[in-house]
């Protein structure tokens, strides 16, 4: 096929599939990401625990999910784990979101652990010296500071997850990549549908990159709100 002889009609005719694909990709990614943040926070805190029965399960979990391919995890969950537990498949959405949450949580756990550990020890000591419990100190003092430092790596994780969500195509989840595959299969044209998929992913990740950069700029430099900046200590 000649590169300069592209026929966009084939893709345009399937535009509804692509639009639906964008929706599915976003739902999968957002669900996986926010689920992964909540679960990952507990895993990260677990990895900071001095209690061995908390630390080791969290560490093993993180090592397992970071050390195996996400594609394998998705297939295992969809074809083995869920059918074994429930007796039948619960559909691509449940499997896909579950796999993304479980995988994303493992990466987020490391981000949380590193972020929390980056806060100077004196902050925890000062909070504890006032009589706060460990968890109160975490919630009021450590996490609010740590979250700021986690914004860049959490943004990266979102972008990685958005791209990795395309792997759910293997369990026939109708996401962006799946739309391309269908178009390719129906029209025997390959440049157009896969280029469209690439561009759609690029647009989405670029938007997220900009958003993260904006949030980072607002939060990471100083704790002093902009309007209060003028009031400098005398």
């Amino acid at each position, binding site marked *: 096929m000649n590169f300069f002889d592209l026929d966009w009609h084939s893709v345009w005719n399937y535009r509804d599939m692509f639009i639906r694909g964008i929706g599915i990709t976003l739902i999968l990614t957002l669900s996986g990401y926010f689920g992964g943040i909540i679960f990952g926070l507990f895993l990260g805190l677990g990895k900071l625990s001095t209690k061995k029965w908390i630390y080791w399960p969290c560490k093993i979990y993180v090592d397992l999910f970071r050390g195996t391919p996400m594609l394998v995890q998705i297939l295992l969950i969809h074809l083995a784990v869920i059918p074994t537990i429930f007796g039948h498949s619960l559909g691509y959405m449940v499997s896909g979101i579950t796999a993304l949450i479980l995988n994303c949580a493992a990466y987020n756990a490391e981000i949380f652990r590193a972020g929390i550990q980056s806060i*100077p020890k*004196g*902050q925890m*000591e*000062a*909070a*504890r*010296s*006032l*009589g*706060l*419990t460990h968890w*109160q100190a975490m919630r*009021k*003092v450590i996490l*609010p*500071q740590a979250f*700021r430092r986690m914004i860049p790596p959490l943004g990266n994780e979102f972008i990685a997850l958005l791209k990795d969500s395309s792997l759910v195509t293997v369990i026939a989840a109708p996401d962006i990549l799946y739309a391309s595959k269908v178009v390719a299969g129906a029209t025997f044209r390959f440049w157009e549908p896969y280029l469209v998929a690439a561009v759609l992913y690029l647009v989405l990740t670029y938007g997220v990159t900009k958003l993260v950069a904006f949030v980072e700029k607002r939060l990471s430099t*100083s*704790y*002093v709100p902009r309007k*209060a900046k003028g*009031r*400098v*200590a005398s």
Partner: protein
Amino acid sequence: MIKIKNLHKYFGKLEVLKGIDCEIKEREVVCVIGPSGSGKSTFLRCINLLEDITDGSIYIENVQVNDPKTNINTIRAEVGMVFQQFNLFPHMTVLDNITMAPKQIRGLGQAEAEALAQELLKKVGLASKAYNYPEQLSGGQQQRVAIARALAMKPKAILFDEPTSALDPEMVQEVLDVMKNLAAEGMTMIVVTHEMGFAREVGDRVIFMDGGYIVEEGKPEEIFSNPQHNRTKAFLSKVL
């Protein structure tokens, strides 16, 4: 009020405190002096269990601090601490730094806590800084806020861990003045310090530590004018 019996502390195999016995009475100002590495900061941090102790016992108002049945958070709420590096919470305003613990632990309402904070800020001379953030303050101002933060819990005693060691020389005095006022009001204070002038003027008692032991203790004039031990003499000849 605070009783320390045969306190030992190891960091791994290194014995940092080698059997400390000490009693601090109510309204007493005790200054702990000594060379670096003598264990004086560790000693202070053991009192509110920021360091877990290896052996011995500590009693605060007849409650054994290192008893596993004791709720350490209740004890810590009664014993304030001021750190060398201030350790203010950078993400909170000065006001929030002070009101956070009283609201969380004492159950004070917002208005009540703010009134208390304003009053304490006035006391440390920083009434105008309530809505500033720590990073907008000088070191001396930050340390005064840290003292106000400790006071907000209405503690029975305050532990000072080298409160002026991280300050520029011209800011040392403003912090010492606040501490002097506290002492005059009758606050029980244990002060680890290198400020010999402060120890001499404000301290009721001076403890000289070296090598993990209390080498000598007594009234400031006795220690500074007529030290009994050679190590005390050697140390004082270098710092005075």
